[in-house]
């Protein structure tokens, strides 16, 4: 393994490309036509342009394999999202004679289909969420099939009980998932979830799960190599979500104890071993207040929030992925957790308007720095946030000796983070960090809805802010189109000290 093509974009592509450089490997970035010159292309040894714009470019298996061939790559790292959990892509990579940096296609398939995964886990003795897989024969007549499924769903729902979650078997990340509170809502939920799942995954099968309220989303990082060793790296607490996507993650989980960690860790290892897993993966659980936990799903790829595990374990998970894919033994020692880490996801979205995605120029983009602060970004000042891609721009991670210090460090970092020109969730996150439920560690999956029952409102514009805005508007502006009428020196050539 000498040259890794990273079949992704944004911050995770940057993360993986840097890991390749540090591992002494050459690397290849790919980019859609609308992403030429983006940050990840600069971190690779070489970069290859793909036809087309938007996510579809990164989903074009043939084009990606051709890019690997033409650039001399001999391995493919899929990152997360896009093709990372597509068994057919993994198979195509292997068939092309390239190293696939991930688990076997078979393991991806068995975990990617959530219904199959539930059955596999039950057989492996891993507790799953009470629920029911809906298995019906398809006739090809969509409306007729829908009615058959609806009948099965309605009768299963009686056993599962309301409220429940109707989920697409091929789904994930909140897609194809609907919360249903009563029998009346089942049909619309089924139609809409099936449609979303068909569009996103080409597979409309669904299953039901009991809705566990006030449960925590706790996940366990696992690593397995080809030499028969499977370990877990402790848990991450990822309960705080908006629109079924995580926004705030921490490790360790505030209510974890050694006994529970040993049990949930063993369950995660059992889950991985049940599918002969090799590589880095994450087993997600719902943890209830009484300490019982249920398998939710396994993500057969690197996870967005892997940095918090890296912080407290000292393991470089991406470096281990490369090592494992090369057939080497993992270099992980005994598990020893050090301090507390928190990650927040920086989204281009408007938290005061239902967290809807926003777009615009990153006219000013100055991430926080300082001890214990890690910033994984896919963008930099001057970039444009496009509506085509996932709105996650970056991840801000802090590591500190304990949870209160980590919270304090994150507050300081968020205060210092300046993003102008595009609406982001930074001010919302800063507010969230002061909420009693977060400070006290009483996190669960509906926390944001409960803390902000009528949505979040941006802080009022005070006197100082108005004064700044007025002055900034009064000096000759630098327009966004780039023509400058400003005689002030640019910051990077001003050499004199300035008076405060």
């Amino acid at each position: 393994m000498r040259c890794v093509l990273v079949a992704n974009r944004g911050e995770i592509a940057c993360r993986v490309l840097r890991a390749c450089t540090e591992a002494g490997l050459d690397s290849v970035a790919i980019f859609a036509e609308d992403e030429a010159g983006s940050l990840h292309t600069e971190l690779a040894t070489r970069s290859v342009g793909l036809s087309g714009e938007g996510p579809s470019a990164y989903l074009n298996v043939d084009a990606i394999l051709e890019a690997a061939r033409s650039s001399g790559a001999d391995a493919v790292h899929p990152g997360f999202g896009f093709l990372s959990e597509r068994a057919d892509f993994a198979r195509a990579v292997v068939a092309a004679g390239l190293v696939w940096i991930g688990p076997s296609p078979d393991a991806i398939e068995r975990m990617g289909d959530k219904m199959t995964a539930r059955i596999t886990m039950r057989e492996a003795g891993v507790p799953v969420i009470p629920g029911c897989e809906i298995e019906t024969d398809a006739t090809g007549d969509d409306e007729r099939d829908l009615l058959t499924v609806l009948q099965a769903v309605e009768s299963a729902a009686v056993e599962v009980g309301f409220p429940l979650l109707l989920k697409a078997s091929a789904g994930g990340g909140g897609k194809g998932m609907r919360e249903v509170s009563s029998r009346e809502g089942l049909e619309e939920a089924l139609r809409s979830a099936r449609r979303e799942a068909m569009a996103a995954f080409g597979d409309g099968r669904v299953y039901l799960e009991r809705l566990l309220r006030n449960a925590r989303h706790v996940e366990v990082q696992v690593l397995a190599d080809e030499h028969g060793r499977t370990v877990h790296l402790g848990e991450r607490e990822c309960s705080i979500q908006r629109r079924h996507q995580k926004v705030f993650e921490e490790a360790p989980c505030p209510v974890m104890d050694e006994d529970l960690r040993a049990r949930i860790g063993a369950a995660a290892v059992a889950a991985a071993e049940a599918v002969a897993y090799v590589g880095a993966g994450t087993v997600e659980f719902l943890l209830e207040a009484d300490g019982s936990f249920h398998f939710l799903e396994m993500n057969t790829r690197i996870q967005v929030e892997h940095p918090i595990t890296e912080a407290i374990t000292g393991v470089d998970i991406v470096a281990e992925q490369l090592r494992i894919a090369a057939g080497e033994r993992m270099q992980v020692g005994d598990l020893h957790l050090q301090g507390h880490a928190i990650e927040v996801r920086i989204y281009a979205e408007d938290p005061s308007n239902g967290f809807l995605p926003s777009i615009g120029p990153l006219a000013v983009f100055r991430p926080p720095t300082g001890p214990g602060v890690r910033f994984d970004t896919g963008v930099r000042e001057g970039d444009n946030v496009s509506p085509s891609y996932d709105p996650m721009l970056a991840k801000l991670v802090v590591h500190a000796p304990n949870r209160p210090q980590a919270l304090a460090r994150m507050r300081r970092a968020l205060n210092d983070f300046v993003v102008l020109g595009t609406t982001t969730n930074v001010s919302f996150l800063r507010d969230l960090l002061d909420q009693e439920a977060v400070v006290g560690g009483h996190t669960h999956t509906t926390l944001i809805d409960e803390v902000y029952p009528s949505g979040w409102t941006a802080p009022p514009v005070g006197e100082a802010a108005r004064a700044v805005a007025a002055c900034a508007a009064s000096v000759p502006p630098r327009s966004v189109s780039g023509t400058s009428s400003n005689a002030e020196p640019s910051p990077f050539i001003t050499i004199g000290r300035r008076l405060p």
Partner: protein
Amino acid sequence: MVEFRTPEGTVEVHPVPDGRSWIVGDHRLTRLDDVRWSVEGEGRPARIAHAIRVDDDVWLHVDGRVHRLSLVEPGARSGGAEGGCTAPMPGAVLEVLVSVGDEVEAGTPLVVMEAMKMEHRVMAPTDGTVVAVHVEVGGRVLQGQTLVDVETDVS
């Protein structure tokens, strides 16, 4: 004099030049570079603010929070009807749930859109009657584009 559009109406702010600084009410502001300002006032120590103008908005960061203020001036674009009848982001129309003449309540779903690989519902902002539907299924819309007109009932 600078005018901003706010939810409470138009606000006028009068910065007065004073040597290298500007005086605005109780605040003294000094430009440090293209985007950074020193802000003194309210009896507090001086602190750093960042500000930049993008189109007809001023974006700024002070005291750990970001604000966006819309300028009122010749050539300024409309602040946009921020109600629920406009597209909250660019995307495609998946379903149109109402027709002209329908009576709707605030919160009634009007249109289902797809953007960033997620479905989003656009709801009626007030009780009223649908008087126009500007989109159809499969059409693409821009951010801020009006999808449906709902007229408040006068009863």
